[in-house]
């Protein structure tokens, strides 16, 4: 049948590619999590020892929790900052909407590493912020707590990942037909009521999706903690990365990674649930 052939011709190559280079690698990684690193030698025998280590060793679970907490906190902050911006572009951007959105995208595309590095340069003892404050006489000694701390990591995350939330939220808002707002107005609702009962609920998919994206990217990140976190600002991503680097314990690293994924999935699901509860679809109870 010609239709079947057309479908197969078009779906098989990309699908096969992903299976071979994405899904199978995940399977292999999972396999690694059940193997064991024994004195520098990889033993390919099934064992749950790695997962037990994750839970029993004092270091992993607290770090997982900390990373999730930072992820949620940073994500909420980016939402707080990014949502009004998305709202502005969508409802007050007028003819310049595309350009305004492009500006946001621009910040995302100019090298992630560089943007983290900028924070290093800004927050350091000899950095821009400190030298600026000293230059204007607000302080005499550099503030040493700025860099290499949890707050540095948090702040950098917020600044860097806000655009990641603006886009999905904007996209959901763009789908809100203007006629819905006019209808609401026509029925006598004030702008505030319209926002609460029409715009906000309808922007839900963007809030959920964007929040999820930001959370996953932040919670699992190792670049920012490494560059601006120092010893205090360590996160689980860094631990996983070192297991695949100098610490050289791939099975353990893999187990930690999957534990992290599981935790992320749970948090992600809760996030979707919470947002759905808090933002009823238009028509909530009176």
């Amino acid at each position, binding site marked *: 049948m010609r239709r079947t052939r057309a479908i197969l011709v078009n779906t098989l190559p990309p699908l096969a590619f992903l299976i071979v280079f994405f899904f199978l690698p995940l399977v292999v990684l999972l396999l690694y999590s059940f193997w064991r690193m024994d004195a520098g030698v990889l033993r390919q025998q099934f064992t749950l020892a790695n997962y037990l280590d994750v839970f029993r060793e004092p270091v992993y679970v607290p770090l997982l929790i900390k990373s999730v907490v930072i992820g949620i906190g940073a994500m909420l902050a980016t939402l707080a900052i990014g949502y009004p911006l998305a*709202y502005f572009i969508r409802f007050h951007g007028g003819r310049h909407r595309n350009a305004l959105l492009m500006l946001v995208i621009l910040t995302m595309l100019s090298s992630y*590493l560089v943007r983290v590095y900028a924070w290093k340069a800004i927050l350091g003892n000899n950095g821009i912020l400190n030298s600026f404050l000293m230059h204007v006489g607000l302080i005499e000694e550099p503030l040493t707590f700025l860099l290499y701390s949890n707050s540095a990591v948090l702040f950098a995350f917020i600044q860097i990942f806000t655009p990641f939330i603006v886009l999905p939220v904007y996209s959901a808002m763009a789908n809100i037909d203007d006629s819905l707002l006019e209808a609401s107005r026509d029925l006598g609702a004030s702008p505030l009521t319209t926002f609460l009962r029409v715009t906000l609920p309808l922007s839900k998919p963007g809030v959920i999706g964007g929040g999820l994206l930001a959370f996953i990217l932040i919670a699992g990140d190792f670049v920012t903690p490494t560059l601006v976190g120092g010893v205090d600002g360590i996160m689980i991503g860094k631990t996983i990365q070192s297991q*695949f680097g100098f610490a050289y314990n791939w099975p353990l690293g893999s187990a930690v990674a999957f534990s992290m994924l599981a935790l992320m999935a749970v948090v992600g699901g809760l996030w979707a649930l919470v947002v759905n509860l808090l933002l009823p679809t238009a028509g909530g109870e009176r």
Partner: protein
Amino acid sequence: MRTPWHLWRGLARAPLTAYALLAYAFLFFPSVVIILFSFNQSKVTVWPPRGFTLDWYGEILRDPTLLESIANSLIVASLATIGSVILGTMAAIALSRYYFRGKRLVYAAMLAPIALPGLVTGIAMLSYFEYLGLQRSLATVILAHIVFTLPFVVTIVIARLSDFDPAVEEAALDLGASPLRSFLTVTLPIIAPSVAGAALVVFALSFDEFIITFFVIGNQSTLPLKIWSMMRLGIAPTINAVASIIIVLSTILVLIGTRFVRVAGR
């Protein structure tokens, strides 16, 4: 005629605009700082900036490993773009034009790489290549880049394909064109702008990609990796210069891209 609605909206506009300005400043100021200090004569990023120099830009040209990493990034990005765009467009066509069992699953599979943190994708591919005994190199990097950029291509091209009447393709067939000819003379010209836009997006994403690349690369370096090692060694000013160039280049790419991909919706 000032109805309360207009009044409220007008009142809301001013603070919102002010907020937006602040938000944009918030988003942009690190990049601005970097560009500013790339011209700074002093080696340290201290305020206020002292003197003006193009030395650091010159340093870029004098560093062969840096130049090599740029070349590598260009090669990887180009090849990844070709691969990703071709595979992604094929998937987009199948997903938007046909109904078949398991379509939802295939669609989800195509978008899956986005759902995973780059860290996990990176270590997964690393262990995979190791397990298969495959040598890590620029080739493995290209493969990895195709994987993580596919969802973007699929999304962008599907959006365009759903935008025009599929009857147009039937019309081409009706007039005697073979399916291939219909694709080349009708479908492709119509989706070309979106495909071009997707290509630019892939190129930019690939050029900047660090996390996955970090794990799957061999002995060479791409630009982000080179920057990373420079950061670890603390060679500040040249990084500012490199970073500024990247910022300017991505700006240009995005500006070109806006001509092809309408992001703000209809």
